[in-house]
């Protein structure tokens, strides 16, 4: 199981783009109004910071996954304990991703079909790809679907140009100020925080030197498109409406009508959503299964698939409605807990310990 730099790029892109594009904008608009796009820009920059931190950390141990090098850095038991918050994050993130994906499909396409039908069918696909292809299979799917996602997003942006109004963006900055803009960017950072999952992936790269540049490019493309998308959303709906909308960018695609024939391209958006959700779910479930197997020293990691797939399904069925998983989960779990601890705190701690110990190790070598 090895993946190339290009595959990593498409994985980063297709996992980050769709969800952030759809949901982060409305949360940012609540705080920053028409300056939501500046929030998204800031979020993108902070995303770069996170990428830089985790890639630099992972590249100190290019052959090891996060679970392995945390043990290398902190010793066997220290390393194992540090994984505990990640384990909780993995399981929770899986089920929320599944719930989100299913909710979106349900709300856009279905009325009577039970939600669990969508979840089960999605899970079947995910189990199939993990079981047959492992990470390499997921990466190849990403390589095929990523470009399609990009083309559809660019296409919808192009077709939406004729109903944009620049005046909705003004006045820039004056209304909101730094504090609100920063507040608005938190939701974006929350979505970009997913990138922490890739600490488990870098070890599989065939050429680990590419990791930093490739992940950065994936993040850059995502950030640019998200900023563009948030500007377009505000230019279409103004600053008030998006705050009340469930997925404003998706709403915007429903406005597209060219020659009275190219209409309802939102269905294309549902398809790329499905692609993105599929890649995201399969990568995250793979990480959960593989990481847990490494954590607990289980040789045959595929067996754990039969444990985590049902857990994911059950947890995904728990939330009462469609807004709970996206709003409450981000506000009550992801922002106060995951971002400071899992995404920034522990990696920073590991990096510091690793740098200090690395230096002391080097010195030891010199003495010997």
């Amino acid at each position, binding site marked *: 199981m090895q993946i190339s730099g290009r595959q990593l790029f498409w994985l980063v892109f297709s996992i980050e783009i769709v969800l952030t594009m759809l949901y982060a904008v409305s949360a940012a608009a609540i705080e920053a109004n028409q300056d939501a796009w500046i929030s998204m820009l800031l979020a993108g920059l902070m995303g770069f910071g996170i990428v830089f931190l985790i890639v630099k950390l992972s590249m100190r141990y290019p052959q090891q996954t996060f679970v392995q090098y945390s043990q290398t850095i902190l010793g066997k038991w220290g390393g194992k304990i540090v994984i505990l918050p990640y384990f909780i994050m993995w399981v929770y993130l899986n089920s929320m991703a599944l719930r989100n994906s299913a909710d979106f499909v349900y709300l856009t*396409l*279905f009325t009577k079909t039970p939600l669990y039908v969508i979840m089960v069918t999605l899970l079947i*696909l995910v189990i199939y*790809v993990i079981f*047959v292809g492992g990470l390499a299979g997921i990466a190849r*799917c990403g390589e095929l679907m990523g470009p399609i996602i990009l083309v559809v997003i660019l296409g919808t942006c192009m077709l939406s140009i004729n109903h944009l109004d620049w005046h909705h963006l003004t006045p820039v900055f004056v209304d909101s100020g730094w504090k609100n803009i920063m507040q608005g960017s938190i939701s974006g950072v929350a979505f970009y925080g997913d990138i922490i999952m890739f600490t488990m992936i870098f070890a599989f790269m065939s050429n680990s030197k590419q990791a930093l540049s490739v992940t950065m490019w994936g993040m850059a493309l995502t950030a640019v498109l998200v900023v563009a998308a948030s500007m377009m959303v505000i230019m279409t709906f103004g600053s008030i409406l998006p705050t009340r909308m469930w997925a404003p960018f998706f709403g915007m695609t429903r406005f597209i009508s060219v020659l009275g*024939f190219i209409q309802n391209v939102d269905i294309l958006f*549902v398809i790329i959503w499905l692609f993105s959700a599929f890649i995201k779910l399969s990568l995250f479930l793979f990480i959960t299964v593989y990481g847990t197997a490494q954590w607990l020293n289980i040789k045959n990691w595929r067996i754990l698939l039969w444990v985590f797939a049902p857990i994911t399904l059950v947890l995904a069925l728990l939330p009462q409605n469609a807004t709970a998983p996206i709003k409450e989960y981000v506000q009550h779990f992801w922002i106060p807990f995951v971002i400071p601890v899992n995404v920034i705190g522990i990696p920073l701690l590991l990096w510091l310990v690793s740098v200090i110990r690395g230096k002391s190790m080097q010195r030891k070598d010199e003495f010997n």
Partner: protein
Amino acid sequence: MAKGENIHRNDALPEQQLNPSLYQNEAYLKEIFQNCSDVVFRPLHIEGRMHVLIIYVNGLVDTKGLEEMLLQPILTAWHNPELDKLSYFKELIAQQALAIRQTALVNDISQIVKGVLNGQIALLTEGETEALLGNMCEYEKRPIGEPGTESVVRGPREGFTESISTNITLIRRRMRSSKLKFEMTTVGEMSQTGMSIAYIEGIVKPGILQEVRKRINGIKTDAILDSGYIEEFIEDTPHSPFPLVQNTERPDVVVASLLEGRIAIMVDGTPFVLIVPMTIWSAIHAAEDYYEHFIYTSGIRLLRFILLSVSFLLPSLYVATSTFHPQLIPEALLLTIAAARENVPFPTVVETLLMEVIFEALREAGIRLPKPVGSAVSMVGGLVLGESAVRAGIVSAPTVIVVAFTGIASFSLPRYNLGLAFRLLRFPLLLLAGSLGIYGVGFGVIALIIHLVNLTSFGVPYLAPVAPNLSSNMKDIFIRMPRWTMNKRPAFLVDENMVRTPAGQDPAQNKESRK
């Protein structure tokens, strides 16, 4: 094969040395070839005693050549009294061997039997414990004709025949290099079918070649009647509906594939040559793509990709949108469809399935029926079923159009066997569309993608060079770049001797420099 289970084989004769007595040898061989009326025993009696015995299979050897090259010299030399009879035969064998294409001396009866069955003549003489096997194999062949399954407007029109030696010649004529190798083996315990593994040394990856040899040598069966038998034995994923081994009737396609580092497997008795490793793109590319202008070819390829998705997706998208998501269809079109469907008693999915099955039946009947009846089938199918079914309101016209277009699209693939896979998968997708709408179609498409990206053919990913991506090899996938830009062999198939066409042959630039 279960333990202790043995295949009935014909070369299970015990090793038996030739006897100096010709009469005993004859008796023994006649016992082996009992009731084989096509095996000819031709003794030459001189002075009342049999001195020479020639054995061959009638129809497998060149009888005229036999008369001229063997019988006449023997009979004329026979009256020469100066020659000692026994020593003469040694001379004869040594000299006459020159007149025959290929000879060998054997002393084992089982080898004689094998040689005779392979179209050789066996020459046994009195008092010798060695026999001469001469290759005078010649049998009735079909002349070289235009390949039936892959015709072109522009390009060579020669196709393979059932004879492996003709086929090898067709390839050798296009590639006069000592690096082109043909490794001969036989497969099939009873049929003893000749097979040849063709490759170009220095281009083919040794690992892939070794794998091909290993898989072919592992085949144990009684008979091989077509290369399709071989294909099923050597596939990577036998349960996939997708063809993992390419077949072709065209020598130019084989040579082009060999130059890309692929390996051709030729089987005697069939004009279909197998090519491994196969990628899905080679099923979408036609031979003519390389003979016609590249701009035209690129356009045609684009069309083919559209038609491929149409043949797979159109019926299910039609069912999904008209049943579950009518809002996706532009209003005017929706009204037309709704008006046409007003009186139809079935749900769209049933209606479409019905028409698809009828279409498949027509197609199958068109292939199987004797040619004179063919027009009747198209009459009944086209007019009676299509026209009357719509008139009677059993099916709607839009459904007929969708099914017909799907059918036409599925014919546009250059390789028939890939079309078969999509033709088959259309039906489960139709059911998914009928039950889950667009989401069902998406489900089917993602499942198909997962299946395709995980397929390999002799270790080479089926979707290479698209997934895993090798952008340097993309010049010949969705479009075809001009020949002078395609400098290198595909990197997923070849390691060494990469350069095909040295760079700097752009005619436009050369024109500049000529000034």
